């Protein structure tokens, strides 16, 4: 069974009186444990697609199933639950809370999921992303690459099976970006389904599959 199965997804945004078609019928199947990158020009609909796959947004038409369970038509309360249990998010701007320590930032999703605030787990995640020594530091004391690693650790704290990242290296230099991709490869090896949106074709090639999206359509097949 595929972990993500999207059929005929379209998404129309309202901009003033005008309808903007961001996605025009995307079919996409992703198997559990795959490492997939999504590339395409700016405005092609990459973010729109990722938001829908991550249940942050609902498609205007088409259907989506996560782990075989259809999610289209579900209310916000159920979508929250799906996000919490299945999906980890990483953003281009790292969105760390400046007054929380690195460790607390990683643990933030735990206070929303109702799981116990597990310090050991936070420590092991920080170790996984190579930042054990930074647990008590504040985000302001970190470099961009380090901040993104903290964000990745935060995305993993609820043990999601899917990690979604929207241009995670867009704000980073190429050496740092390389480090982040090595981390994605490592997570992929550990069995997590990794889906990364990027501008950078070279970095995209490191994934098992590259999906190109243009004008709201996936070409290069599913």
């Amino acid at each position, binding site marked *: 069974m595929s972990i993500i199965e999207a059929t005929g997804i379209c998404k129309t945004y309202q901009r003033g009186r005008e309808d903007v078609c961001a996605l025009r019928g995307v079919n996409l199947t992703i198997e559990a444990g795959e490492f997939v990158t999504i590339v395409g020009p700016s405005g092609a609909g990459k973010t729109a697609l990722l938001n829908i796959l991550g249940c942050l947004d609902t498609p205007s038409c088409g259907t989506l199933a996560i782990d075989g369970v259809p999610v289209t038509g579900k209310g916000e309360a159920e979508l929250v639950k799906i996000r919490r249990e299945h999906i980890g998010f990483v953003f281009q701007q790292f969105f760390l809370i400046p007054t929380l320590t690195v460790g607390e930032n990683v643990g933030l999703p*735990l206070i929303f999921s109702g799981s116990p*605030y597990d310090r050991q787990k936070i420590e092991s995640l920080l170790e996984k992303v190579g930042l054990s020594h930074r647990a008590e530091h504040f985000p302001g004391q970190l470099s961009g690459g380090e901040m993104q690693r903290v964000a990745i650790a935060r995305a993993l704290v609820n043990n999601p099976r899917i990690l979604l990242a929207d241009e995670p290296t867009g704000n980073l230099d190429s050496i740092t970006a390389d480090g982040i991709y090595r981390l994605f490869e490592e997570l992929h090896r550990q069995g997590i389904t990794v889906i990364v949106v990027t501008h950078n074709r070279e970095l995209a090639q490191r994934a098992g599959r590259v999906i190109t999206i243009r004008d709201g359509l996936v070409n290069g097949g599913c």
Partner: protein
Amino acid sequence: MNLLSFAVKNLQRRKGRTLLTIAGVAIAVAILFSLLSFSAGYERELTREMDSLGFHLLAVPKGCPYEATTLILHGGVIPKYLTNEDLARARATDGVAIAAPMLLQQVTKDGTPHIVYGIEPAVMLPLKPAWKVNGRFFSANETRVMVIGSTLAEKENLAAGSVIPFGPAQEQFTIIGVLQPTGSEDDNFHFLPLADAQRTFGKVGLITAIAVRADDVKHIPRIAEDLEKVPDIQVVTMAQVTGTIMNLVGSARSLLFSVIVIAIVISAAGITNTLLMSVNERTREIGMMKAIGASGHHIGILLIAETLLITTLGGIIGILAALAGSGIIETFVRELIPYAPSGSFVSFDPLLIGGCLLFSIGLGLLCGIYPAWKSARLSPMEAIRGEWE
């Protein structure tokens, strides 16, 4: 870490703004708390002062209710008089335990008015069980002797044994006793035997007022009614006096309450505005939190928790400040109100403290609800969206 400690850490992000908002709440609560505690204490002190008078009603000459009221409060002069016949009628009235005649006169010494009471010790002293005298009290038929209040003694540097020229004829009077402090207006008065006062001031057979004590407080209204039937007499009850004062104070109080309402509205608008600002600034961050598993509920609770922290802390600080500054505030309030009882009316009512804390919490809920609702329904996509959107 939990939602509450997260809320605390969020507030630390804009320390200056948070502190200002807390200060706004503290000021509003401090004003509210002082005002409420003063009006409770005021009523209590006023009642206590009325009780310390020792009598339930005052029979005065007809047509002088205002003079009679000031007379009760500060001592004063009434230009009309009652007679011994009126006194006899009062004493014969059913239910009257004590009827004490008084002649009040005013003398001026070095430009300051002094109040002189002519009293009958046999009936007056039972009305004033709290009086303790240094020296001795006079008996009814003594002449050229007086007992004075403690404040007066101190001001004029007098003691038992001093001899002073007194009255229209500047006769030599011996001070035979000084009252120990009573905390009431009595501390400012001269007391003379009634007969000698009548002689000294040329008012033989005349009485300014008759202080009446009922054998039972239940009989007060009936006694008042009976005494009103005496043609010369008008009755002023302590309840009427208290009521009149409370009315006067009430108008001063409504003015203060409008001040407090304005203070609260301003502080509430400030809190709401601060919260809306912080929601706006954190729009994308709130979106991020939703993306990593926060529900609208969580965000709403977080906002409410932040608000409650601000208002509760502000409330506690406000109450503490009001308690600490109550002396200063009391001085200020005394200036504003028409009649201030001599005792301090600061009170430490735990119920009032609890009430003001509840008020702070209520204020937080009220101010937090809209920003919380607004942020709870923010779209999670806001975070993942680029800056250009």
